[in-house]
């Protein structure tokens, strides 16, 4: 058997098989070992696929050797390999962290279930990215969503249950909208293969059912990617989930939904249908700006750091969608590069906050007063990631903002440059609130004896913080991959 030829299938199958194995094995150590191995294997496969796509172009894998469009096709192009590396890479970093982290948050007999759900969620997310079949996207979306609801409900606070329930309702409505959209497209074209669908839609792009499908898919995916004002589920879900889960979700779940949106827009409908027949540019611009300003402002008034950074995530989604709304190479590059940049930054912050929760007993601003004196490394890490959220040069956040501004200037929209800078100023305020509490306020009583989080939690967090700076200085990897992916998307269907 040729393993190398079957890598696209293994990318999904490895974590998918790991999930039931953990249930059979039960023991928390065994479960952890199996899922860790699966996640690292998935990461290795993703890198191998990335290198192969970079060398020899798009990979089309036929499941069961049934040729598309009849059989299901797994399709790896530049964009999907980029997102695959991102998702599996974050999973590979978060998993080692989760071992010490959930030991403090969950009763030991439930640990193996955490790893089961984590493996399922990873399999679902990877499947959504790699598949070239419209209905498959829905099925993988539901695999990842259902496991996400369970992961959130594992949170210690009882509010985690309500957050999971609300996300279940919103998420299912979103997923159902996506099925309706896919169904309408299937009725029009008689195919589910994305590439085939795109070709068949060419002549009938203006038909009303096609535009209705576009609307359903946009709303459904916007719910999943938490575009303002469909973000209501996100702050509570991130705030009350276990730390490792918050970090993994913040870094991957919304990004994969953005990927699916890009896939439908550029590979199926074509940019012409989306941006010229409908006022999508204006719509996305307004929603993105509203998200950037409203969510950032709301973040400034949060007393709980996890909620604060959850609202900041909604604002950052605004930047991602803003890049999409330009419908230009620079704008799309900004969107794609910010997928990775925000994932690294926010993943790092939530991992560090998990350590804060362990050492300081909570993540409210009152709890972290004077934290810098007892946890200098963690505080410094959060500050660096905070600088990246603001967009300070030397961090990854700067690269994204830079490309957004370039895209805005290309379009001649100077007022937008102004707005991007102003919204970054608002993020200075909410990051500043953390800095003030941690560095400039006197420690509360009993804080003196506290120490840094255990090394097993610090190391993975540190790795993401390091990546935030590293990819901010040596930009060629992420930026190069993003601009190539953007060029490929734009070149696909015009």
């Amino acid at each position, binding site marked *: 058997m040729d393993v190398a030829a079957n890598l696209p299938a293994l990318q999904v199958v490895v974590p998918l098989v790991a999930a039931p194995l953990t249930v059979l094995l039960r023991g928390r150590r065994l479960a952890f070992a199996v899922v860790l191995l699966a996640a690292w294997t998935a990461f290795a496969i993703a890198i191998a696929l990335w290198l192969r796509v970079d060398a020899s172009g798009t990979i089309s894998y036929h499941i069961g050797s049934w040729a598309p469009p009849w059989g299901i096709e797994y399709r790896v192009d530049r964009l999907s390999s980029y997102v695959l590396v991102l998702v599996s890479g974050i999973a590979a970093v978060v998993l080692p962290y989760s071992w010490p982290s959930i030991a403090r948050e969950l009763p030991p007999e439930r640990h193996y279930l955490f790893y089961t759900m984590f493996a399922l969620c990873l399999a679902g997310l990877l499947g959504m990215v790699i598949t070239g079949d419209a*209905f498959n996207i*829905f*099925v993988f979306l*539901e695999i990842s969503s*259902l496991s996400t*609801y*369970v992961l959130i*409900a594992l949170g210690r606070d*009882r*509010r985690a*249950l*309500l957050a*999971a*329930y609300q996300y*279940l*309702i919103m998420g*299912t*409505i979103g*997923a*159902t909208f996506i*099925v*309706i959209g896919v*169904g309408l497209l*299937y*009725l029009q074209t008689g195919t589910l293969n994305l590439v085939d669908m795109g070709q068949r839609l060419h002549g009938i792009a203006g038909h009303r059912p096609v535009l209705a499908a576009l609307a359903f898919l946009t709303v459904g995916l916007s719910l999943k990617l938490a575009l303002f004002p469909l973000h209501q589920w996100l702050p509570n879900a991130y705030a009350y989930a276990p730390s490792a889960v918050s970090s993994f979700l913040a870094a991957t779940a919304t990004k994969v939904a953005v990927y699916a949106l890009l896939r439908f827009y550029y590979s199926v409908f074509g940019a012409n249908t989306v941006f010229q027949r409908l006022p999508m540019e204006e719509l996305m611009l307004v929603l993105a700006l509203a998200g950037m300003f409203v969510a950032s402002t709301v973040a400034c008034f949060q007393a709980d750091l996890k909620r604060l950074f959850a609202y900041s995530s909604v604002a950052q989604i605004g930047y991602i969608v803003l890049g999409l709304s330009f419908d230009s190479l620079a704008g799309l590059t900004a969107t794609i590069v910010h997928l990775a940049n925000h994932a690294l930054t926010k993943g790092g912050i939530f991992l560090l906050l998990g350590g804060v929760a362990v050492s300081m007993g909570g993540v409210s601003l009152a709890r972290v007063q004077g934290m810098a004196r007892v946890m200098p490394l963690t505080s410094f890490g959060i500050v660096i990631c905070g600088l990246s959220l603001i967009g300070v040069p030397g961090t990854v956040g700067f690269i994204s903002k830079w490309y957004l501004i370039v895209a805005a200037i290309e379009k001649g929209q100077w007022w937008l440059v102004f707005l991007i800078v102003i919204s970054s100023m608002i993020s200075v305020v909410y990051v500043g609130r953390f800095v003030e509490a941690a560095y400039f306020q006197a420690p509360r009583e009993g804080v003196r004896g506290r120490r840094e989080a255990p090394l097993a939690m610090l190391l993975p967090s540190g790795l993401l913080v390091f990546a935030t700076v590293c990819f901010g200085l040596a930009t060629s990897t992420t930026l190069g991959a993003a601009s190539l992916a953007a060029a490929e998307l734009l070149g696909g269907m015009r």
Partner: protein
Amino acid sequence: MSVASHFAYAVTVFLMIAGLFIVIARGNLIKKLVGLGIFQTSVYLLYIAPGKLIGGTAPIVTESYGVYSNPLPHVLILTAIVVGVATLALGLALVVRIREAYDSIEEDDILAADRRAADAER
């Protein structure tokens, strides 16, 4: 183009709107799930109804039949039904645990309890 020929679509749209309305308008967590179930079910009809051709048979190639119904929508919806069942099961399990934690399944009561707890913390 008569109402009768669009009967299936009319039913689909009615179920869709009714389900979505229940999810939004009701505060009872179980009723919300019922609405969600109706909403999802409407989509099954959206897929299956167009797959049926009057006089069509299963797609088996013989000389005696020339008109076939498309079996693919049924298969897709079989998958969607499984997803729907899983969602409903998980939703109900969450409601059971919410009831244990809050002693209520009315959204208003639960949110009020959360507010009281948040005020007490301060």
